[in-house]
């Protein structure tokens, strides 16, 4: 060692000096440790083995750090390459790199999720489903994974409908990495649209009620909810939702159109007419509103129970309604083939109409005529193969039936 130090102080370490120092060190170690009576032969071997163990574990420790760091770097590189390829729409090539990144860093959720999303984009649902199942095995409350599984199940057709709904529900109530309220509302909308497409009206209605209470003041979301409520035959709730929008945006043409439709469905024809008029003024180019307005006006012209009508006018309208419904039934069904009670209704309608011509007192017969008209309309819908579409009569009879 002294020679070594001397060599280094003089500015040059000679090879001979290093060798000599090493031999000297070895001799001292040998003398003090190996030849010392403290250690027997086995002791020396044991010392050697434990020294080797120490060196091996240190080496493994160093390699371990480098190994995981290298894996991490490689995986990140692959992930970035895949992101670039995905952005260019080259999903197939991106998948190869994502797969490599994922194999390198199996625990990284971002890689796994990106990998799974690419699989879904490539419509490789079987593989994607397995990945998502594994994510959920580790973290059952993972909302994005549940949502993706819901979409896969929804795409698989009738057999997976129930599981799709379950996954949607888990996604709604699961944990989102950021902005949970926003994601929950979006997911519930997706579920609502899915339920609407599958005609699962009861469930749809339940979801829409929750949605209406969750949404703060986003007019777009409220309008969407309102129209879905109309689809789900919940006009009263839809009316409330559209009114909320109009509270903040009184001239919103879509909200006015929706409210008018909701009022039409609830049988509030006068209010509906007024709302459609406002909607038409707010957006004169909306042909659908004009069509709806014309319908409401037609209904109001037919309505025997409209306020302010005299008793003769009411009776006359009731009789007119009876004629329309009777003609509709007679036009599409062979009288003899109809059930006896329907035939009886038709005979009763004819009698009423005879009485009307003879000018009998109308007060007693208005309600009876209306009731008969409602029944005949329903009979027409039930027994005719292709009954004539009469939306105004349909709306009116429905409203009158509720009133009766």
């Amino acid at each position, binding site marked *: 060692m002294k020679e070594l130090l001397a060599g280094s102080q003089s500015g040059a370490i000679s090879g001979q000096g290093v060798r000599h120092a090493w031999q000297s060190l070895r001799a001292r170690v040998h003398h003090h440790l190996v030849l*010392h*009576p*403290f*250690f*027997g032969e*086995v*002791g020396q*071997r*044991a010392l*050697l*083995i434990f020294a*080797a*163990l120490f060196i*091996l*574990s240190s*080496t*493994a420790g160093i*390699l*371990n750090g*480098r*190994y995981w760091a*290298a894996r991490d770097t*490689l995986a990140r*590189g*692959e992930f970035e390459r895949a992101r670039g390829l995905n952005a260019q729409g080259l999903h197939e090539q991106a998948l*190869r*790199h994502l*797969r*490599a990144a994922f*194999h*390198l860093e*199996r625990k990284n959720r971002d890689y796994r999720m990106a990998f799974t999303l690419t699989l879904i984009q490539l419509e490789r649902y*079987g*593989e994607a489903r*397995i*990945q998502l*199942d*594994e994510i959920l*095995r580790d973290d059952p409350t993972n909302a994005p994974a549940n949502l993706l599984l819901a979409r896969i199940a929804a795409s698989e057709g009738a057999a997976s409908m129930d599981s799709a709904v379950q996954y949607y529900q888990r996604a709604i109530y699961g944990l989102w990495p950021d902005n949970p309220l926003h994601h929950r509302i979006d997911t519930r909308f997706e579920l609502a649209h899915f339920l609407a497409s599958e005609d699962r009206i009861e469930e749809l209605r339940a979801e829409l009620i929750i949605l209406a209470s969750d949404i703060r003041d986003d007019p777009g979301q409220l309008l969407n909810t309102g129209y879905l409520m109309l689809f789900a035959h919940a006009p009263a709730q839809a009316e409330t939702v559209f009114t909320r929008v109009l509270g903040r945006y009184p001239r919103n043409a879509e909200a006015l159109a929706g409210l008018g439709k909701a009022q039409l469905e609830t049988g509030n024809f006068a209010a509906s007419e007024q709302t459609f008029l406002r909607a038409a003024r707010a957006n004169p180019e909306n042909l659908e509103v004009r069509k709806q307005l014309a319908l409401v006006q037609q209904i109001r012209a037919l309505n025997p129970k409209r306020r302010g009508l005299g008793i003769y006018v009411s009776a006359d309208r009731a009789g007119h309604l009876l004629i329309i419904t009777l003609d509709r039934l007679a036009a599409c069904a062979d009288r003899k083939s109809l059930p006896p009670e329907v035939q009886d209704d038709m005979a009763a309608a004819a009698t009423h109409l005879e009485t009307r011509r003879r000018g009998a007192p109308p007060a007693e017969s208005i309600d009876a005529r209306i009731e008969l008209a409602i029944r005949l309309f329903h009979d027409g819908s039930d027994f005719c193969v292709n009954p004539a579409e009469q939306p105004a009569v349909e709306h009116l009879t429905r409203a009158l039936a509720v009133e009766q």
Partner: protein
Amino acid sequence: MSTIAEILETKRRQLADTLANRNFNASGIPLPQFGSAQRFLLLSILIGVFSGLLVVCFHFLIEFISWSTLGVPVGESLVYTLLFPPFGALVSVLLIREVFPRAEGSGINNTKAAIYISDGYIPLQSVFGKFLACSISIGSGNSLGPEDPALQMGAGVASYIGRSFHLAREHMRLIAPVGAAAGIAAAFNTPITAVLFVIEEVIGSWNAGVLGSIVLSAVSSVVVTRSFLGDQPLFRVPEFQFRDPLELVAYAVMGVAGGLVSVAFVRALVFIRERFSDLGSWRHYALPAIAGFLVGCIGLGLPGIMGAGYESVDSALHDEFGWHMLLLLCLAKFAATVLCFSAGTPGGMFAPTLFMGATLGGGVGLLIGNIPRMPEVAGSAYVLVGMGTLFAGIFRTPMTSIFMVFEVSASYVIILPVMIANTIAYLISRRFLPEPFFELMARHEGLDLPSNEEQRERESLHVEDAMSRTRRALSWDMSVDAALHALRQSDVPYALVSTRRAVWASVSLAAVERAREQGKGDLPLAEAFALTDLPRLYMDLALDEALSKLSKVPILPIVSRARPDQLLGSITLNDIHKAFGIKA
């Protein structure tokens, strides 16, 4: 002061003596004395730790080499894919042949040779040789696996540690399997499989003395490995369920396919190895390089087959491939592995076997799934079962193959399908292959190692196969004259005597004649002789146990285990000779 210095010097010497001779300690209290058996048990933990660390480093090195040569993902560069496998094969063969010649050969056969030939001796050189050569060959993409080298590294470390601690000869012979278990447990991350494999393939029998050490070493090596590489199993296995008994038909078909492919694989391997060995000495370097190049060519189209190929197995488990691709991968791996192994490139066979099994299972399973009325089964179940079938068919270790699949899948549901498929594959392999894979390889390497399969199935003779079922015995109160008469009527010159305490003794014709000559003809046997109790034998005992007892007495009673007073028969040396077909 000088007194204190003297005392200290005395104490120091005592301590030195204690450590050197291990008889007493400095305070005069006897130190715990470790015999060879206890040392064997304690060393197994050290062996496990050592092997675990070594396998971890081996794993790191393989990965580093793979990333540096083949890149990520594998097969990105055409030039690297074509050039590095032959280059790696050449370097690894050079290392084995020129630097570490004692590292040549199969790890399992080298370990078995250590047990049966060299009293547990495995040179440390072979550990370094396997470590370097196999990491280069596998890391550079040659189609071989790291488990067999890991097994030999564990065995080599164990052998060195055993030698260092002067274990007794019988323990030295068994220490290599202890290390082998540690090595394979660390490589597979499956302690149960490692223990079973070593018992089934390396030792060949359930040896209670070594079982504890094997378990300890396997567990300690897995603990070390997991602390570095994480506790994830070798494969991530998706969940699946066993729903319909009809699925078992599919698994049985898979067992048939697995068995046939196993037979084809081993036959191809033997055939090509024999052809290659007929070539000149140039083959040692040229063939691995050519095989590596061909593997590179295959890897251009199917990069998944390069190296151990575990990533492709993982992909197969996760439904990445359709049935055509799975069967194509199986075929490609088959060819690549046969080429590499036959050419003599260093590396093991476990990983390729699992790869071929997984892809075959997945492919056949998906094909079966397309048949109308067949129940829908998760692809991962077929992949797992396929792995087991090839393992059972090629290595002929049925128990290990079942538990391996169970351990890597962590699914109890898979047990039933695996048992059915593996048993079928195993039986087909037995039917069409005269010897298991490792024995064929040992033969090729010039070793004649005992067949563990035969050893397991060899029928040993029991007492019931040799005993004489004559239940006649003399009574203790019978007179000497009557006994003499009975003995003269008998074929043998001695007889059993029932004593008062319902135990058995014996008298010989000569002794009875002598007693009569001494005028004891009227005395009962109990009074005429000092009757000593004979050891009892039972019908189910092995014949060698009877043989060792018959060295002291001419006849032994065979009694019922439930009623020791009930004589079922007797046995003599002559009976045992007859059972072994030796003429008296």
